[in-house]
């Protein structure tokens, strides 16, 4: 499922004193099966951007083509779009409401008009693919830990069998162990289910080691778009807009400026250590 954004602009409260231009001339192409990280600090427009991808917000101007079709065409079925572009919001508490976790995951497929058997099958599959412990299937969602709630929320969207999965800060409020688990899980899902995954985050370090492509948002525009190593070359510019490249990037640049011939492209701890050892020999 390819998504093309063509000159997307978006304004909050247009024609008033509170008018804010949240997106400015966004042009993007998202191809099938990509694993993308959208990075930006609060207010950079990243959340606004992703809400356009499933039609929750309508651009003030510009076009979005999904599989070649303009989603702003009058006869375009927006609900069908939402079946294919799944979105998991920042706080799982915002979507959990049923009496059991299993029932909650059923909500999406039920809305798709599937019969009960298919709905349950989908829910079961989804909960399994997020590795949700089976003894909690029929427990209420409100007593779960943050990480487990997150899993139910993701399963709730996965059960709709989307081709594109968007996750808005899926690790917010989790501790480091919980964060790593969820990110590993998402990376795994991308590999096994072969779906397009878009991960929104304000942390470079978290996302860098998972995604294939990073889109950096700043003040409503796309600042950089490319493979992580390429984007991190601009670590000084990133720093200026309040985003930091991974610590390792800084380390490598500092060592190089001190005359040590290290590899500037290293982003992980292992790569860095190896390159330093080599340079020291």
């Amino acid at each position, binding site marked *: 499922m390819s998504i093309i954004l063509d000159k997307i602009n978006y304004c909050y409260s247009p024609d008033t004193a509170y008018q804010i231009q949240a997106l400015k001339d966004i042009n993007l192409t998202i191809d099938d099966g990509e694993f993308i990280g959208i990075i930006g600090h609060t207010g950079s427009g990243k959340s606004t951007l992703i809400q356009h991808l499933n039609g929750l917000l309508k651009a003030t101007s510009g076009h979005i083509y999904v599989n070649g079709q303009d989603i702003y065409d009058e006869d375009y079925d927006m609900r069908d779009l*939402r079946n294919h572009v799944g979105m998991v*919001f920042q706080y799982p*508490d915002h*979507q959990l*409401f049923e009496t059991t976790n299993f029932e909650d995951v059923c*909500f*999406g497929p039920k*809305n798709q008009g599937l019969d009960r058997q298919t709905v349950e099958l989908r829910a079961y599959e989804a909960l399994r693919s997020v590795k949700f412990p089976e003894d909690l299937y029929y427990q209420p969602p409100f007593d779960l830990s943050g990480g487990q709630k997150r899993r139910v929320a993701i399963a709730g*969207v996965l059960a709709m069998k989307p081709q594109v999965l968007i996750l808005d800060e899926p690790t917010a409020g989790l501790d480091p162990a919980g964060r790593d688990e969820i990110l590993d899980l998402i990376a795994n899902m991308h590999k096994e289910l072969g779906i397009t995954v878009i991960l929104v985050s304000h942390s470079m370090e978290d996302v860098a080691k998972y995604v294939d492509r990073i889109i950096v948002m700043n003040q409503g525009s796309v600042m950089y778009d490319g493979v992580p190593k390429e984007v991190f070359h601009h670590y000084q510019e990133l720093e200026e807009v309040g985003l930091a490249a991974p610590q390792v990037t800084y380390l490598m640049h500092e060592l190089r400026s001190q005359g040590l011939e290290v590899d500037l492209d290293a982003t992980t701890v292992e790569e860095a250590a190896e390159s330093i050892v080599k340079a020291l020999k």
Partner: protein
Amino acid sequence: MIRDITIGQYYPADSAIHKLDPRVKLFATLLYIVALFCFKGIAGLVIITLFLLGAIKLSKVPFSFMVKGLKSIVILVLFTSLFNLLFTPGDVVLWKYGVFQISDTGITNAVLMTIRLIYLILGTSLMTLTTTPNQLTDGLEKSLSFLNKIHVPVHAIAMMMSIALRFIPILIEETDKIMKAQMARGADFEHGNLIQKAKNMIPLLIPLFVSAFRRADDLAMAMEARCYNGGSGRTKMKPLTYTKQDGIAYLIMFLFFAMVIVARIFVPFPQ
């Protein structure tokens, strides 16, 4: 949408009205409402209109901002005026169909009702726009403190009000987010009949309640941590004291009210 509601919002500005004691403003609003419902004749209307416009001008709140607040009550105004128009019997009946009739009294009633409602909203929103919720509750707390003697927990009620006001915008924003999260899962809040719509609201209301209760819990703890212990032994950062301006304001208010009454007695026409 929901964000456009201006009633209950505060508009920060540095004006004579903003600086008035909230008790003055509360009393003035009360008097204004009474005047609004007991004036008669064009002279009374002119006095009230001038008073309202003068107050708005003094408050430095842009007129367009106030008018925007009216948008949310358009339906209510239309409804009441339509009722008045169609159901009031009168001496001269202009049109009749079944139980519906349009009479001369109906027309005047409808017009009056529309004016009263619009003026009511403008007047009360002027008060909330120029008074912070905290000042407002402070004003209420002090004005009603005599109720303490008959064991009405005035302080607790005032505290609850100000907290409610603080959290309304947060909960509105949260509702918006929950709505989107559920719409992304195919929830439908727009179609279907009334019962279906009500049923569709469940995925919205439960997360909202769960979160509201959690917030209440957190907030209670945060208040306790800051030594909140009910109303006894509390001092005030902004204690209410009357100044000369407040005295003048009271004077103007009484003068205004007297004029409306005088106009009602001596120039009660037309009508």
